[in-house]
């Protein structure tokens, strides 16, 4: 079953066609990989789907709903969360506050009351609400074994933990679809190993994952389905095995046919 689909999605920056007529499908419950050489348009595609950038042409369908051109905050409320290639944490807030902010739109809302009433209620019940949010945030920190650093400033964490904290913050709002933009960038092999384990545990929570990654070992190991972009165009889609043996992909991305990929 498809959770997300793009139809003829294009993005043109001046004379550069960053994303060219891409039909990208994300299968529910799977780990979907998005790979391609540098400048292939992977992050642009992510940005368009998550509302950080507007498509020039085409449609984005999420759960049978057209989300093309919606602002980013609305899209995230529909259940699409993301992390960033260059980590974007709230560096001057504590680790637990980062995750608490991730819970922003899941708390203080009462479906039976108007929006003003919600804001009002949230303001005057801050004490009890804070405890509730704090405990929920701590649960997510435990999921990532970050609970001991809860009171530290997010900016002071080591790099690998910052990546994990960003994922924790994205997951806090219980999204159904999670976009990870190069989660293993800059990680050492041990941290990458740990990340693979984490991604598998997130999938076990029932979250569909789309990840951009350059680390082929990681992609081939944990992805159930892989889409390959090159110069803004989708050139292949399939299981890791199919992608490994696809001649177009090997030509465009992995180099000469007789070369080992890793």
């Amino acid at each position, binding site marked *: 079953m498809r959770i997300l689909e793009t139809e003829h999605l294009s993005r043109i920056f001046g004379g550069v066609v960053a994303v060219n007529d891409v039909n990208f499908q994300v299968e529910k419950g799977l780990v979907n990989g998005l790979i391609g050489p540098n400048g292939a348009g992977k992050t642009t595609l992510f940005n368009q789907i998550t509302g950080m950038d507007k498509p020039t042409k085409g449609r984005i369908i999420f759960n049978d709903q057209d989300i093309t051109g919606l602002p980013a905050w609305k899209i*995230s409320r529909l259940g699409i969360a993301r992390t960033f290639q260059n980590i974007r944490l*709230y560096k001057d807030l504590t680790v637990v506050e980062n995750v608490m902010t991730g819970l922003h739109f899941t708390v203080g809302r009462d479906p039976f009351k108007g929006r003003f009433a919600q804001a009002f209620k949230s303001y005057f019940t801050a004490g009890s*609400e804070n405890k509730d949010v704090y405990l929920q945030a701590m649960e997510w920190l435990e999921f990532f074994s970050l609970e001991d650093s809860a009171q530290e400033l997010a900016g002071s964490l080591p790099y690998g933990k910052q990546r994990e904290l960003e994922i924790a913050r994205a997951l806090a709002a219980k999204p159904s679809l999670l976009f990870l933009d190069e989660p293993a960038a800059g990680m050492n092999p041990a941290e990458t190993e740990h990340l693979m384990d984490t991604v598998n545990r997130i999938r076990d929570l029932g979250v569909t994952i789309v990840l951009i990654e350059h680390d082929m070992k990681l992609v081939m190991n944990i992805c159930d389905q892989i889409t390959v972009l090159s110069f803004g165009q989708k050139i292949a889609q399939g299981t890791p095995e199919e992608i490994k043996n696809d001649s177009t992909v090997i030509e465009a991305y992995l180099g000469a046919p007789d070369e080992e990929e890793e």
Partner: protein
Amino acid sequence: MLNFFQLIIIYAGIYALMAIGQNCITGYTGMLSLCHAGFFCIGSYVTAILCKTFGLSFWLTIPVAAIAAGFVGFLIGVPTLRLKGDYLCIATLGLGEIIRNIATNLNPVGYQAIPRASLFGYEFSARGKWQFIALVWVFVLVFYFLFQRLAHSRIGRALNAVREDEIAAQSNGINVTKYKIGSFTLGAAVGGVAGCFMAAYTATVNPGTFTFMVSVMVLCMVVLGGMGNGKGVILGAFIIQFISYFPQLFGLSSIIPAQAQQIIYGLILVVMMIWRPQGLLGRDKFRYGIEKRRLAIPHKGARKEGGRA
């Protein structure tokens, strides 16, 4: 001497209200605005005109002033809050001057002999300084607690997120524009309330009071005390007021010219930015009161049952 100290406490109170408003804009949301003197001006004029021309009670003018200043803040905010950092600073600086110029054109000499505030038959005149101190500081405390509450609610977290990283805030479902305009409006409204007290205390308003230097002074209080720290900005208001009355307090006004203040504000801003950018008290750390009770935190199973802790 006592008289001067009382005066400092009164002005510190009025400026503490201003600083609380500026703190909401600059400290929580991270928008560098320089038009608080404009909101101050609007508050003063609303009180002056309503009290003098329409004979309204001082108390009624407070909400009107807050709404008027907040509304102007909203109008200024909608177009300018798309700008960032120094661009926003320049735009708001200009708008603050526009407000002052409108006030000058309205009535270049301002308003004199504004009726005093009274409560249960007691009139808060300039002579009863202790009483006026009580009046102002009750309001400072009320706004202090309201804004502490705000800062530590879901709304406050959203404002902090907007300050730290707007793009990440959007990805967390925070409507950045709404929170920016909201915080600007709220900060402006508090600036308006401060203006009411200025008009009530001095019983005169004139456009010369609301210069750009007032905005700089308020920003200085926030930077000095600690951005995003409620107690800090009140401390900042005290220190800055003390500095500005220092020559008069010790009879040195013939030696130290009034312009020396401006040098001192500039120095404070520069020195703080170099050695202690977080301000004297630093950013407010909020304790949730449950950090130590680690055992009370339910384990991973709890979430799968959909149960909140």
